């Protein structure tokens, strides 16, 4: 069995001298056992292990159970719980104002796949540097259990109501729209999730993580295809994924069984050990076919579905200056009086 990579060894303090509790948030007010809390825990772990400075993080969200969670991790980061379905625009504005922010957006399946799908589409198209987490449980939890647009066709509510509409596959959409880091995971698979989150932190561009996150109150029964049991019984990782930070790379020998390594923006690597599928996540067509196949056969394929490290980000397209716009001084923002004279003269 291959040795675990250096980064996943438990540490009391990280390279910044911070402890995991420095990354904690307020106590969660979600239902006991909610998948979202499991994801928050892995976010805390990922930010801690990746030595992210909490003050550099901006947490953005829309409305819903998932969108409450930014209050439950990273207390020392600014958070913005905005309006329903509009996390993408809020994340965009924040990153435009301060490009040094590490932006993590948390959304749900109602927030993203219904009311916010337009903003999701355009955010992905722009490739804004952002970790976009969809905590996907197939129902509207906060309004007590209505189906969402990611509910599988023929899935049943506890009340017996059956969903007759096909589901929207957010990973498939993200790949189609040009997202550069697309993953599907499971709140019940912390090891894979933390590696995917760390990879997303190292990636420069939009990272979409569609995470099955069971709703223990409204969608965890037999007949649900978004329950813990269904997830555990059906999860089929497409590869075993390790995250190798840049600084650890030299210490770690090439591991037996590694099939593919892809270097990320900050110099770190994702290391993939292929399983029976022999899947290459840098192949966009293969990714699209994989998603189609999963949908047709109702498979729960998890892992890094797609990765493109070459595409330019929205900030590159805008040719923004390196200094955050929010921190520019008055003499950088207000041209001198001669400029006003020059412009005015052109209107004579």
């Amino acid at each position, binding site marked *: 069995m291959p040795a675990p990579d250096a980064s996943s060894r438990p540490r009391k303090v990280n390279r910044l001298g911070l402890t995991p509790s420095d990354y904690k948030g307020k106590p969660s007010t979600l239902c006991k056992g909610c998948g979202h809390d499991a994801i928050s825990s892995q976010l805390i772990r990922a930010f801690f292990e990746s030595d992210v400075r909490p003050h550099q993080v901006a947490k953005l969200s829309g409305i819903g159970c998932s969108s409450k969670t930014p209050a439950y991790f990273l207390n020392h980061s600014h958070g913005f719980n905005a309006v329903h379905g509009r996390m993408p625009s809020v994340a965009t504005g924040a990153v435009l104002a301060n490009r040094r922010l590490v932006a993590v957006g948390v959304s749900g399946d109602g927030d993203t796949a219904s009311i916010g799908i337009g903003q999701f589409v355009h955010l992905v198209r722009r490739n804004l540097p952002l970790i976009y987490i969809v905590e996907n449980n197939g129902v509207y939890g906060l309004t007590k259990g209505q189906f969402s647009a990611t509910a599988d066709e023929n899935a049943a509510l506890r009340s017996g109501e059956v969903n007759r509409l096909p589901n929207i596959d957010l990973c498939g959409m993200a790949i189609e729209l040009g997202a550069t880091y697309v993953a599907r995971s499971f709140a019940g698979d912390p090891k894979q999730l933390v590696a995917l989150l760390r990879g997303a932190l190292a990636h420069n561009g939009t990272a979409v993580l569609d995470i099955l996150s069971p709703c223990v109150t409204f969608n965890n029964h037999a007949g649900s295809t978004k329950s813990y049991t269904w997830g555990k019984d059906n999860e089929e990782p497409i590869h075993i994924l390790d995250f190798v930070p840049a600084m650890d790379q030299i210490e770690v020998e090439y591991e037996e069984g590694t099939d593919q390594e892809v270097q990320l923006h900050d110099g770190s690597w994702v290391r993939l050990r292929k399983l029976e599928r022999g899947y290459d996540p840098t192949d966009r067509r293969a990714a699209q076919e994989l998603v189609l196949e999963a949908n047709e056969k109702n498979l729960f394929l998890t892992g890094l579905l797609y990765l493109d490290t070459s595409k330019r980000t929205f900030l590159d397209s805008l040719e923004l200056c390196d200094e955050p716009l929010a921190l520019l001084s008055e003499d950088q923002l*207000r041209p001198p009086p001669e400029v006003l004279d020059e412009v005015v003269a052109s209107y004579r």
Partner: protein
Amino acid sequence: MSDKTALVEEIAPSDIDSEPERIVNDLAIQVATVNGSGSQSSNLVLLRALFRMGIPVGGKNLFPSNIAGLPTWFTIRANRDGWVARKRNVDYLVALNPQTAIRDVESLSPGSAVVYEEGLRLERRRDDLVFYPAPFQELAAEVTREVRLRKLLANMIYVGLLGELLSIDVEEIFGAIESQFRSKKAAVELNRRAVEIGIRHARENLVKRDPFTLERMDKNRGKVLIDGNAAAALGAMFGGASVATWYPITPSSSVVEQLTGFLKRYRNGPDGKATYAVVQAEDELAAVGMALAAGWAGARAMTATSGPGISLMSEFVGLGYYAEIPLVIWNIQRVGPSTGLPTRTAQGDILSTYTLSHGDTKHVCLLPASTRECFEFGWKAFDLAERLQTPVFVLSDLDLGMNIWATEPFEYPDRPMDRGKVLAREDLERLGGTFQRYADVDGDAIPYRTLPGTEHPGAAYFTRGSGHDESAEYTESEEAYVRIMTRLDRKFETAREMVPPPVVDQAEPASPLGIIGFGSSDPAIEEARNRLREDAAIEMDYLRPRALPLCPSVLDFITSHQRVVVLDQNRDGQMLQLLRAEYGDRIPPGVLRSLRHYSGHPMDAQTIVDYVTEMEIGAA
């Protein structure tokens, strides 16, 4: 029969062929064409030539919501005394649109002149007008053999015809052509030639028989010709706009389009890269969401839109109010409700913008009345938004925003930027590392904020649109809710002290009659006041609010007059409603009179003069 009527009958129509009196520098020229025909360049050349002759001018474009094929009218008003508001009567019509020519001619007052495509045979329609026919297509064919260009150049032919008929200085026309086409030498040559052919045709074929003429004056020294949206954009750039997010909508699109042009030219950092971000968003919801979050993160953020966009922005604006986030929103008003008349002007969003969003909300609204104020409020709006930590609206309209106005040059901001109450790392260290995001520390109801990215463990707070207490923690406590909402109400009182005060022009002692009007109504009000004074010896004091919330001096003005006309460019008298809501029974009964103009046309003086004259006859 009164003497007046008899006089009119005596001079019309038989006498118009005799030597007419000369009317110098006082006329409205209307060019009726089809949109997409390229007449806008010719109209701007004409306008600029008059402007450079030193004559006060203004240009108004009445255009359809269409790209090509529907009627459009461009009106230039030249007036030696500086009155350039819309004038209801046209003195000089250029009739090139067969679709509207007959109606256009029928609407003219006796004695007006018509320059027209001779094939339209308009001379048969009236016998009390002066007709100047010309074969436009034939003349254009002399300029160029290219059929594609002929249509465009036909427009420049009328510039030549009018130039000759109205004695416009031909050198100023040529100069205006050069400004219009700048470096395109071939275009300058062709257009000059078209003008020359127009002049020659008029000289050889037309006999001047109308009284209108133009003479050089010196009233535009130092002035510029500019539209309000360009002025707004320029003001925003000098206000340090760093994030502008928008979605195209008439009549606001040219705010951010022109801003982008200015920023590209003048706002690049030492590394040659942009010190700004302009994003055309997917819709107005995203546009305002981006701007709001950019303001939250410390940028000088703005968006520009019009009625339908304002409706879509409603939810985010409520968040901005409650979570106290600075943001500047330009609302270039057009005619509603719904799609309404998207290319016509109105002041119909006053109430809806003032209280935009659900729950108890109210917003600072600036009300510019001129291109100079568009510039001034363009930069001041950022100071107010950041000082007050709230969305600030600037309510312009299509008339002010898209039409062309002569104005004194803009004044460079007279004070440094006010970035408001932002705590940096050093401030937090001094405070011992704690701060309460929504606490009223200074007694002015304005709290302190920190920006994301501030390197201090105590800097972070959680922004939310849900119930929160002073520490920005989630709460459903009724006490906390009431405290925060009451403080927001007090903050609005702080805003009342900070916004631009009304402009008051009042006789000493005060006349019994006053008028309250705002925004683009201003030129028509000033012209009406002058005419009432000169023609009817009626003195009308004037108060022009420049912002909401209203200052206490507005009530003083109302109570110191017996009759106050409130002029609204909307059906429901929205400013009147605001005054009543604000002052209630402190306004003596019967004082406020409501004049409502909502045809979609810009405000004109005659409407005010007629209303006031009738009212004063009643009062006497």
